[in-house]
């Protein structure tokens, strides 16, 4: 199957200007990341704060111009698109963010929020817009009584539903969800996750689901990539990543999740001691070196490539050096 979205060797570096008391430098927020999302698939992206998850999402959404690399939608590079073609591509990728109070305009009613993309892209004659808005509201479990409400009159969960309705308005093929349930309570989170599964079943769209919550990712995703300091350190089918964990960082993450929320069988990996100070990751070595329990001398000066653990399961760690080294996915021309 042809992938819906391909991210190929994507890099996004930020230069920090030297200021009065600070050295300048380059932050490699996303560093040589490749993966692909098939149609109707849920692809998960996990990692801690500052690992580059959101920067990556913003590159895919064309909010940021990447330093190098490609983002392809149906084989076409989205950064070379202009004019009508670009507008078409924008219709096909939509986004939902963490905090709906910030992603919805406080001065617009629910109706005008959901109608806005319909008007911008002129997909419907004006007289049909209201009907479509109501239809979308019903899809996300809201009703006519919410049409004239403002975001501040709705709860967090309801606002997130409005954001989902807005994202669905243009019938996209892919929705990028950046921590969509992180600001919600458990009971509301369950409602939103159910809604997202329903929508996917009905309309067959793909999700790129970014989250730091591994239990949510395990429940929802088909494939999963773990990011650490701008790199993908492990990638593969979710079951394989959770059950046959290959990278020490993934193991650490899993051991750190309060075990109850993930599995009843305790994942008893002993936590390493508290770090004293940030030990800067080595320039040419494995970025995880300072925190790694299994570190070897070579990790300090050599950057591991992704080794193939099993079919479609890869990890960037010298512990798997005996396995074939590969690029994932194979760059298509």
């Amino acid at each position, binding site marked *: 199957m042809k992938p819906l979205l391909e991210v190929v060797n994507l890099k996004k570096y930020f230069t920090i200007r030297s200021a009065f008391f600070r050295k300048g430098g380059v932050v490699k927020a996303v560093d040589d990341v490749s993966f692909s999302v098939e149609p109707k698939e849920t692809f998960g992206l996990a990692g801690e704060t500052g690992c580059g998850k959101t920067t990556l999402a913003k590159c895919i959404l064309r909010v940021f111009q990447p330093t190098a690399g490609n983002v392809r939608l149906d084989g076409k590079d989205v950064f070379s698109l202009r004019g009508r073609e670009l507008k078409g591509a924008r219709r096909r990728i939509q986004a939902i963010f963490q905090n709906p109070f910030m992603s919805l305009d406080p001065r617009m009613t629910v109706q005008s929020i959901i109608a806005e993309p319909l008007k911008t892209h002129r997909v419907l004659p004006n007289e049909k817009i209201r009907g479509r808005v109501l239809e979308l509201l019903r899809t996300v479990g809201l009703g006519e009584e919410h049409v004239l409400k403002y975001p501040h009159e709705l709860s967090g969960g309801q606002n997130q539903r409005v954001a989902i309705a807005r994202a669905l308005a243009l019938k996209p093929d892919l929705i990028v969800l950046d921590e969509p349930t992180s600001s919600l309570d458990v*009971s509301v989170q369950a409602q939103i996750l159910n809604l997202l599964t329903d929508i996917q079943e009905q309309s067959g769209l793909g999700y790129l689901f970014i989250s730091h919550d591994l239990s949510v990712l395990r*429940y*929802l995703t088909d494939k999963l990539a773990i990011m650490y300091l701008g790199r993908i350190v492990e990638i593969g089918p979710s079951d394989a990543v959770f059950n046959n964990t290959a990278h020490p960082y993934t193991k650490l993450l899993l051991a750190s999740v*309060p075990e109850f929320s993930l599995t009843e069988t305790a994942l008893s990996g002993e936590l390493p001691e508290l770090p*004293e100070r940030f030990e800067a990751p080595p320039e040419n070595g494995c970025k995880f070196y300072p925190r790694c329990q299994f570190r070897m001398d070579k990790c300090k000066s050599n950057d591991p490539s992704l080794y193939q653990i099993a079919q479609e399961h890869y990890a960037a760690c010298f512990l798997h050096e005996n396995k074939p080294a590969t690029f994932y996915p194979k760059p298509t021309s």
Partner: protein
Amino acid sequence: MSRVQSYLLDVTDLKLTFQTVEGKLQALDNVQLQIARGEIVGLVGETGSGKSVTSLTILRVIPENGRIERGRILLDGNDLLTVNEQELRKIRGSKIAIVFQDPSASLNPVYTIREQMRDMVTSHEGEVAALEERLVSLLHDVGFVQPERILNSYPHELSGGMQQRVALAIALSCSPQLLIADEPTTALDVVTQAQILKLLKQIRDKTGASILLISHNLGVVASNCDRVAVMYAGTIVEVGPTSEVFRNPKHHYTKGLLNALPRKAAKGSKLPIIAGSIPSLINPPSGCKFHPRCPYATEVCSGEPPKLENIAPDRLVACYHPAGDER
């Protein structure tokens, strides 16, 4: 209480209201909470359920429009609601200490860690001989290997987890009997979270202090607390040993909350949800506040509110129709 034991903290029948423009908001109603010495008790609930307000009421630092209508908060036998402001000042910090969610907001950005810690220690103990050694040992206790370096740092030079450990060191500086940790790991990453939680346990083991761990994260509470209290709409609906409550919840709200977690659900399956949404506390439902959302509610549930009562030794539940055993 069936337990013949004096609790360090014994909160009974606490009711707190806030006067708002829209009317009287019942933030806490009939809150019962007991903490034994050296015990870690978790307080879980969703946004707006009254977890943080409970902790602020224990310290009596509620906002001006708040009124404690009735209740008793006994610390070591002394009612905190009747002592005067002067005595209260001595209790805050020295007997009860608190750490908050966002450590960068509770540390002063323009002072070094040394200056902030010195202020805390001297304001409670007066001039302290060998102050430096004291600060070093406090930081050492929260896991810093080179405390001298930390003392010279400003908060922004430390990571979130390190800041939280400094906040903990300050909280522990007067050897409190009760440490309230209000969402102490919510702003932190999972790995750091696990380390801070491990540290809390070590502190309890070493100092024998009691800890009230407030969190919305059921996993955090499940893996770290001896007992857990579940809050809903300003009341405590269920209390018991953590593993019991999570394995065999008796209140239908607790049950619904646990089922809504994606932890065990098969991929693609539906998560069981709690119907409806959290009630307004200005016009709360009569009787059991959960009854409009409860699948097992009957007429009796909308009448007199159910009392938090023992259904087994050490298991309390406020429900007329508690869930059956599932073992």
